[in-house]
């Protein structure tokens, strides 16, 4: 019965417009439907109504009210019909069943029962409707969750109901107090989903929308918005181990080959209804109420910009009616490295040096024919030259060994050996005295993280407010990595009159941006036998003494001469006005100016010993951005004959983005640079530079959208949008994007027989076209001239003096036809819920065709242009997404829920330049045509964007394959590379064959983007107040190439001149004949000298484990606290990689682990 009631619920989602007790209601109804009566009240008072129950809306009412206040009016209208009403967040819910006279109960038997209703965590729930089953009476809980009600008899059953929670029935019995706790509803059908320029209930959705409520994962203490999103099906969230965190976002695969760090393939962000031009760090995760991800074309088509890449809508929290709520969270944490490329231990370091020198002596022993050390080169006559004196091979006496070099009298064998390995100066001394520096300790640390947030929110009848402030200070795992941000959010909404509502939302952030960074690789690369400090304990400038020509790097010394003050100050504001017009039409105006101020003050002191003052000094950069967008929206929401629900939305929109930047680089500051970056004036003109860069871009759009639903069974959405953008302004500024979607809630059909098993089911289909305009610069369609490094050319004038001229180079080819990139896509979806929605989820299938793709078409560089930005080609994506939520166990002791997400995406380039070439058979006859690949960009028809097309390394030449290796110009320890096409190999006059490696030998080896991603989250709530959860996610099926196995260790003289300690690893030697790793400084055959090896990058990450505990209410209430929660979380707990061994499998480099402890207080 109640199930049915939910489905029959009709809603008016129109927002509350005004509320005033001073306002009274005047009404004259004669046999009018309840719906019409309530519409009239809505007109007069601004409330929305929600009918909960069968046929309530169609009940006939006759009443005559004159200047009656709302409560009286409702009581008059509803009481006698056995209906109850409740007011919550501006929505009046009318519930109850028409009363049958038989059940009328005399008042004499009544007694009073009271109680307290709490949520699953024990926090009081206000506004819960408490009714008696089968009776007309009801009440609501107050702010403390307390209710009190007259109960007719002991057989009565209380029904507790509130949106978002499971309805609960409790027999009253003889008890006089009944405390209950409600569990959140697994069914989120009633939840309001933000669909752009308005909201909808989830059950009405026709598109593919994923919703996330951060409060549900609050125990995990998400550091960034990305942390909240990670794991959602269809989303790819990059991983960023730094103190700041974050990461790139991609929805449903790459639409386009255009990839230039402009974020072309990442989704459009919408904050509280307006385009958000900032970065996600500006939004405090604590302030987010919900996030809606629009994944299919129909949902996204109402947006322009780069909606084709998906849309993420973030809605911030707002105040709830009742007394002000103060919420505070405090988090303290620690960050450590979880993975990095560790360096050799000292023993392995010495062995590696020895092996590095010995590799050049390898050769064939003329006596045995075996491939051995000390057989070639200048050490052929000095067996064991680089070996430790106590490990000499038999046949080499220690005297012979010593005599290889002219040694000082009395010199120790260890010293002789060390010198042969390149030790001299301070490293020799340190080696002999056993002094060691652990450079990893100087590079990494345990960083302290602090995150404090406080908010106060509340709402009166006219004003709703939410104010928050947060301070974040994170230290990364790398010594130089610090990040801090202050964020504040001020949101106010006011009903000025019953027809006008005004709101403002100001978001402020001040954040640091970058540090005086350590060069991690250089720091770690220092020899363990180098010096970190001098005899006084001060960091030395050069870890290696002057005998070395590359003297290493000491961050702790360098940083004393560097200073950086860099960051952003951002004001993001949203203002809206909503005017209620006749005929259920609402007009709203929204504007969102955003100011961003950037400052970069950097100082490089010329005091740095040995530095060149002409290249030292101060940088100062200031930039300002003003981005605004505005829209005028008309919406009409009407239901006819109870079953026909129409929503029409019309939008006009405009955007303007302006940017101004100035930069000064003052150098050689005289007479002194003691003022640091506070003085640029005294920089010497010839060494200093200044520059500016301003941009301006505009966009506008018109949008129309129609939603129609019939009887909650059939829903239809159609929209059309016309978009213009100034970067395409030369000839094609506009493009039109239509969409349509339909949905069928088949479980609402009368003939659907299995409602008791399948509680909810909806089929969806949508089609639409989206655009993408994102370019790395708004001027790419225009030719421009480039000033290079901004230097000059000097001529000598007649008096022999230098006369300098600025120069300009033609840099970019104009493309007046540049236009919108378009993506057309289909989406088929099934939403389902079983067993009263204890198991629910969705299944999606989509296909997307992106055409007129914005791409950098390669041009022959000899034209003077390397590429042109143009629209060509087509990329198809198709995929499946599956998400499942289940409540596995639910009892008073344990509640166990699981969320599982799986997505598969197949990405394929189907067209590039629409240029065809002949396909030839072996005899050279034309047997067809095929579209040409773009080899230079690595784009291939029929292959994914991230296709890996390269040589295949099949193994390593072993010592007994010297001759075979020589045919490829290689040595044992070098990689074997598949020579797939041999017809072009050259037969030399002496009969030998020169194996030719070229593109014809390359093959498809896989792709770099993971086609499969899955995530799994389990949450256990014990005794209702202790929750434990863990999250796992995994990327599978992607690969990468790496040259690490070639052990290019010297790389510019690091081994020879700088005693480098390279990352610890395995490598081929005669004594370690592995088939997986090359020798030190291995190389491929001629033409494929740096052939990389293929690695499977699949991995599974235990992303976090969290524990949260609500302190018992009896304790917290003593301290006047509403509730208190303590929690702890570990992020990036463990990672399992299938194949990758050079650092973290996701970053390909280092990664960090974060431990957090937090406390959350609500007053």
């Amino acid at each position, binding site marked *: 019965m109640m199930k049915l009631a939910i489905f029959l619920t009709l809603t008016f989602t129109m927002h509350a417009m005004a509320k005033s007790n001073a306002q009274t209601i005047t009404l004259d109804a004669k046999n009018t439907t309840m719906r019409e009566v309530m519409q009239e009240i809505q007109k007069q008072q601004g409330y929305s109504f929600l009918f909960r129950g069968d046929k309530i809306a169609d009940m006939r009412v006759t009443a005559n009210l004159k200047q009656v206040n709302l409560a009286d009016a409702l009581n008059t209208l509803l009481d006698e019909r056995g209906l109850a009403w409740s007011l919550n967040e501006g929505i009046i819910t009318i519930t109850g069943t028409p009363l049958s006279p038989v059940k009328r109960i005399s008042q004499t038997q009544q007694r009073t029962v009271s109680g307290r209703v709490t949520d699953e965590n024990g926090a009081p729930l206000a506004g819960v409707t408490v009714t008696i089953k089968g009776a007309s009476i009801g009440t609501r809980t107050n702010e403390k969750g307390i209710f009190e009600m007259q109960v007719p008899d002991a057989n009565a059953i209380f029904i507790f109901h509130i949106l978002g929670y499971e309805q609960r029935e409790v027999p009253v019995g003889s008890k006089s107090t009944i405390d209950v706790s409600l569990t959140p509803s697994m069914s989120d059908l009633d939840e309001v989903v933000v669909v752009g320029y308005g909201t909808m209930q989830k059950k009405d959705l026709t598109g593919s929308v994923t919703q996330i409520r951060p409060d549900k994962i609050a125990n995990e203490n998400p550091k960034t918005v990305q942390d909240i999103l990670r794991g959602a099906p269809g989303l790819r969230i990059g991983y960023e181990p730094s103190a700041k965190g974050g990461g790139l976002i991609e929805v449903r695969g790459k639409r386009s080959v255009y990839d230039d760090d402009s974020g072309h393939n990442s989704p459009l962000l919408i904050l509280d209804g307006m385009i958000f031009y900032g970065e996600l760090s500006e939004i405090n995760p604590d302030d987010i109420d919900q996030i809606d991800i629009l994944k299919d074309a129909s949902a996204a088509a109402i947006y322009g910009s780069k909606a084709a890449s998906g849309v993420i809508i973030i809605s911030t929290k707002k105040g709830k009616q009742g007394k002000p709520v103060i919420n505070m969270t405090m988090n303290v944490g620690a960050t450590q490295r979880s993975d990095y490329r560790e360096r050799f231990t000292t023993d392995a370091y010495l062995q590696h040096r020895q092996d590095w*020198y010995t590799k050049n002596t390898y050769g064939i022993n003329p006596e045995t024919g075996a491939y051995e050390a000390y057989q070639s*080169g200048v*050490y052929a006559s000095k067996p064991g030259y680089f070996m430790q004196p106590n490990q000499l091979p038999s046949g080499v006496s220690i005297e012979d060994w010593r005599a290889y070099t*002219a040694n000082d009298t009395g010199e120790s064998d260890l010293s002789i050996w060390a010198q042969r390995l390149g030790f001299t100066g301070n490293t020799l001394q340190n080696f002999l005295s056993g002094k060691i520096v652990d450079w990893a300790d100087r590079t990494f640390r345990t960083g302290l993280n602090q995150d404090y947030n406080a908010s106060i929110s509340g709402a009166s009848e006219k004003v709703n407010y939410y104010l928050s402030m947060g301070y974040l200070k994170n230290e990364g795992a790398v010594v130089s990595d610090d990040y801090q941000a202050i964020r504040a959010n001020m949101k106010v909404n006011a009903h000025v009159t019953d027809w006008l509502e005004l709101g403002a939302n100001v978001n402020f952030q001040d954040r640091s941006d970058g540090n005086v960074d350590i060069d991690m690789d250089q720091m770690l690369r220092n020899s363990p036998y180098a010096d970190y400090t001098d005899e006084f304990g001060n960091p030395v400038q050069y870890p290696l003494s002057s005998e070395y020509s590359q003297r290493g790097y000491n961050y702790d010394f360098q940083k004393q001469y560097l200073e950086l003050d860099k960051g952003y100050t951002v004001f993001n504001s949203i203002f809206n006005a909503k005017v209620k017009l006749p005929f259920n039409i609402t007009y709203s105006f929204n*504007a969102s100016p955003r100011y961003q101020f950037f400052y970069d003050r950097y100082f490089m002191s010329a005091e740095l*010993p*040995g530095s*060149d003052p*002409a*290249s030292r000094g101060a940088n100062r950069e200031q930039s300002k951005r003003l981005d605004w967008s*505005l829209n*005028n929206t008309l919406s009409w929401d009407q239901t006819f004959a109870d079953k026909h629900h129409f929503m029409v939305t019309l939008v006009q929109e*405009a955007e303007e983005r302006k940017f101004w930047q100035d930069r000064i680089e003052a150098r050689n500051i005289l007479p002194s640079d003691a003022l640091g970056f506070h003085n640029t004036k005294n920089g010497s003109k*010839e*060494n*200093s530079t200044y520059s500016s860069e*301003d*941009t*301006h871009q*505009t*966009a*506008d759009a018109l949008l129309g959208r129609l939603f129609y639903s019939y009887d909650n069974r059939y829903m239809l959405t159609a929209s059309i949008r016309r978009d213009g953008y*100034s970067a395409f*302004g030369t000839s094609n500024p506009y493009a039109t994007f239509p969409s349509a979607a339909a949905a069928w809630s088949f479980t609402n059909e009368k003939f659907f027989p299995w409602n008791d098993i399948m509680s909810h089911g909806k089929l969806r289909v949508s089609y639409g076209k989206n655009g993408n305009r994102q370019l790395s610069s*708004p*001027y790419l369609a*225009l030719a*421009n001239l480039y*000033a290079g490094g901004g*230097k*000059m*050319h000097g*001529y*000598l*004038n007649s008096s022999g003096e*230098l006369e300098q001229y600025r120069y*300009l*180079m*033609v840099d970019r*080819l*104009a493309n007046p036809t540049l236009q919108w990139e378009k993506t057309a896509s289909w989406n088929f979806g099934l939403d389902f819920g079983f067993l009263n929605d204890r198991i629910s989820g969705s299944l999606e299938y989509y296909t997307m065709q992106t055409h007129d793709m914005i791409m950098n078409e390669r*041009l*022959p*560089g*000899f*034209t*003077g242009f390397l590429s*042109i930005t143009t629209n060509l080609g087509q990329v198809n994506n198709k995929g499946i997404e599956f998400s499942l939520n289940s409540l596995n166990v639910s009892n008073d002791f344990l509640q166990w829920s699981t969320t599982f997400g799986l997505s598969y995406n197949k990405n394929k380039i189907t067209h590039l330049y629409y240029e065809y070439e002949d396909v030839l058979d072996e005899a050279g006859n034309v047997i067809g045509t095929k579209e*040409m690949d*773009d080899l230079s960009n690595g784009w291939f028809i029929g292959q994914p964007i991230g296709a890996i097309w390269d040589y295949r390394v099949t193994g390593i030449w072993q010592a007994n394959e010297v001759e075979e290796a020589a045919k490829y*110009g290689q040595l044992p320890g070098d990689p074997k590379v598949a020579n797939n096409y041999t017809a072009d190999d050259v037969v030399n006059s002496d009969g030998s064959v020169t194996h*030719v490696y*070229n593109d014809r030998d390359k093959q498809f080896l896989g792709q770099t983007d993971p086609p499969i991603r899955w995530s799994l989250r389990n949450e256990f709530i014990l005794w209702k107040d202790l929750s434990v959860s863990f999250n796992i996610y995994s990327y599978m099926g992607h690969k990468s190439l790496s040259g690490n196995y070639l052990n*290019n260790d010297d*790389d*510019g003289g690091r*081994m*020879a001149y700088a005693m480098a300690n390279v990352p610890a690893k395995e490598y081929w030697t005669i004594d370690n004949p592995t088939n997986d790793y090359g020798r030190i400084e291995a*190389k491929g055959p*001629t033409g494929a000298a740096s052939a990389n090896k293929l690695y499977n990058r699949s991995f599974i990450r235990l992303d976090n484990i969290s524990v949260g505990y609500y302190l018992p209410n009896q304790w917290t209430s003593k301290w006047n606290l509403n509730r208190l929660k303590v929690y702890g979380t570990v992020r990036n707990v463990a990672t399992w990689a299938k194949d990758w061994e050079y650092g973290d499998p996701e970053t390909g480099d280092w990664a960090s682990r974060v431990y957090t402890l937090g406390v959350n207080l609500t007053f």
Partner: protein
Amino acid sequence: MGGTLLLSSCSKSFLQPDPLSVYVPNETFNTEAGLMSAMAICDRHLKGYWATDHNEMLILGTEYTFSELMVASATDKRNMLADVANMLTPTSDDGSLINLDRTNSMWYLWQETYKGISYANTIIKYVDQVEGLDEATKNAFKGRAYFHRAFRYMALVFEYGDVPLVTTIIDGPKQDYRSTKRDAILQMITQDMEFAVQWVPDQSAMSLVGLINKGACRMLLAKCYLAIGEYAKAKEQTDILIDQSGYSLMTENFGTFNDGGEPQTWPITRNVIWDLHRPENKLIAANHETIMGMPNRGSDAESFVKMLTMRILYPFLFDGRVKTKDGKQALLNIRRNQADYNPQYDYMRAFGRGISTFRPTYFQTHQLWKVNGVMDEGDLRHSSAVGNWVRMEDYRVNNKASSEFGKPVTLFSDNGTLLCSDTIRRWYDVPHYKFFLDDPVNEANISGSDGLRGATNGGIADWYLYRLAEAYLLRAEAKYYLNPSDGTIKDDLNIIRERAKCSQLYQGTVTIGDIMNERARELYWEEWRNVELKRVSLCLARSGRPDEWGNVYNLDNFDKQSGTDASGGSYWYQRIVHYSMYNKGPIQIDATGNANPNYTMDKKNMYWPIPNAAISANNKGQLSQNYGYDGYDPATPKWDKWEDAVADEMSVAE
């Protein structure tokens, strides 16, 4: 408010592109100042060929390793380009430009050269739309642009053979280029240079030094005439340069005397050759020999391009692989702030801290200087006595820990043991008078500097483009092709030798080899040796004149042969097999990267492979690959006439 914005945003002009900090060509190249900005990059770009590539490279090094005069010597790099015959392929050098593992600049010489052509084409395309420019000025601009374009095509056709001809700034994408034949391109640039010689003014009529002048145009025109076989016309141009243009060889000391940085270590006896090659004297009015020079001075942040001659071209000596007889490191880099400092042995200040990316051949340091079978001791260009030339034996052991302190370093110990274990990189002579450059920045900062590297962040490093001495040598060449038995050819060589105070002069008739040797002696690190050798190879094949060994070449096949044997190939290849270290077998050294370099050069390396990246980016057409390389197909269509190539280029659709 919404309504107002609604109206304004709907007007068409709202979406007009609004470039704020962007120079749009049509609105920039419509004034003389705008054009001058295009000229400035042409001139700066030209200078770049002599200046740095990356920090361990000089672009011109590639021109010399592809000649008989130098080889690559960065023996710590495993991929050092030594085994050229096998290592050089169309894809071997596709990598990034700033790649320290690279020991050649071929990719740079392709890509940057075409950039230079596009800079020149910019002037040619836009000059006619500048209003208010008189005909003479307009044509002078055009002539200078032609010079820049011709100079680069001259290099391209002798480095790469048949290449795509680009003569304009395209208006839209074009990817269907064909290669244009070498001789067709030579015909075009000859015609362009005739125009340039007519319109570009003499230096005497110009206010700026460093802008292309008539003399430079005449020099290039003479080379064009030689290349297309118009030897008489070439001789006529050099006659004009020598007799009618106001130039004369410098024969006495002049200008400013630079004492060479540290006279206590390495004293210089002032002489005309030293003065002639000091950057501070190259472009002064008193220097009558300069036809055209490239100013390179000021600060690194402005117009200076650092010149790493001392870094790249001096032997790598401060290293344990040069030992004393008692087993110590022979040469230390002791700075002035160190206790052991002794100004008599401050080799870093006197000679810099070389890393030897390229080294000269034994021919370049020794055999070349024999004339008439006699080592010419007087030749100032090879004179260690005056300080112009530095031999290894001139260094003295400066390691106090050695008993040999103060004595000359030696290659062998008393019992004949080799004391230098990597003689490729650490044992050779240097023409100090050419390569020494003041390094005022590091000089002022000696305490922190780990070595003078030649001019790095500033100073004066002006370089010669053309000197009158080369005009004599070109005239000698022209005379040789016209009539090898012309007795006056030797006079054109001897006048240069006399100036260098040589004791040996040429007698009777001379060979092309004598002329090329004199070029090598006089124009080291000024001329593009590889390009000149290949140009002469063409001249010999075209004229049918014999080389110094009596070989005669055939125009049809001199540049289409392969192999590494001693016979055949072009004159370029013959010079290499006779005089260089190539094709003489592997050498065993103590080096961490390449311990047994095997220097090889193939006859097919006459032309470098067309980079695969250029071929694949030109995906609608087919560029021809050169003979002997993967992808060579003689049937690939090419433009025989430059006019056809230009017409094809102009037909590109908007």
